[in-house]
């Protein structure tokens, strides 16, 4: 069986992630796809590079999955996060949540992306035409994993 929470250098399939959580008990699937945006704060991105502490990142995604289960016992979730070089509009992360009733699916999905931006060891490097920078190293961000979400591409 495929992992439900994974980090991969391969392109992500929204179809596959949706299928992971689709089941007879569910009436709703909500998916989030974080895509590479061309302009951030007026500066044009050429491509993004994502790096992960692979093994720990998958553990942390699984931990988020358990948090979701505690808060929304009827929810099933799956997350794939991509690493490597991503071009504009590529999917960096796909989150799928299924629930019997739709309200929970939206809420649990949003919870997951916020937690990913807090506690999953993955980093993004912006590559512009005239430079590059790891995101996070000069931003005012929290030091602790339980703090507020950091500033990601889709904030």
């Amino acid at each position, binding site marked *: 069986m495929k992992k439900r929470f994974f980090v991969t250098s391969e392109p992500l399939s929204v179809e596959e992630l949706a299928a992971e959580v689709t089941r007879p008990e569910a009436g709703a699937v909500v998916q989030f796809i974080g895509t590479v945006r061309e302009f951030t704060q007026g500066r044009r991105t050429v491509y993004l590079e994502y790096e992960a502490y692979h093994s720990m990142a998958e553990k942390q995604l699984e931990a988020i999955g358990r948090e979701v289960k505690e808060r929304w016992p009827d929810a099933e979730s799956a997350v794939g996060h991509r690493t490597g070089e991503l071009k504009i509009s590529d999917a960096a992360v796909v989150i799928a949540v299924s629930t019997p009733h739709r309200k929970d699916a939206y809420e649990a999905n949003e919870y997951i*992306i916020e937690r990913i*931006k807090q506690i999953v060891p993955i*980093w993004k490097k912006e590559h512009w035409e005239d430079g590059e920078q790891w995101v996070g190293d000069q931003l005012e961000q929290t*030091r602790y994993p339980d703090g507020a979400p950091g500033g*990601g591409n889709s904030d």
Partner: protein
Amino acid sequence: MNKRGTQTGPREVEIVINVLCFAHMKDIFGGEKLTINSGGIATVEDVLEYLKATYDADISGIMTAVNEEFAEESTPVGQGDTVALIPPVSGG
């Protein structure tokens, strides 16, 4: 050289610690993986002090993990443990 130098007892035993560097930590330390072979290391704080002193590195604001679990400065570190330097994450 620092307070560890004046201590005695079990903290002086030399141990090997693996250190993983991510994102701009790789640039600071010149690689993805360091090996520390030193005495006087018992906690995450000791590892960070050792790195600051040895590499003259600014690693303020960095989180750490010991063996893939987020750690505090007081988290114990022992022989063969892996300490990861975790800058503010920016996935998603």
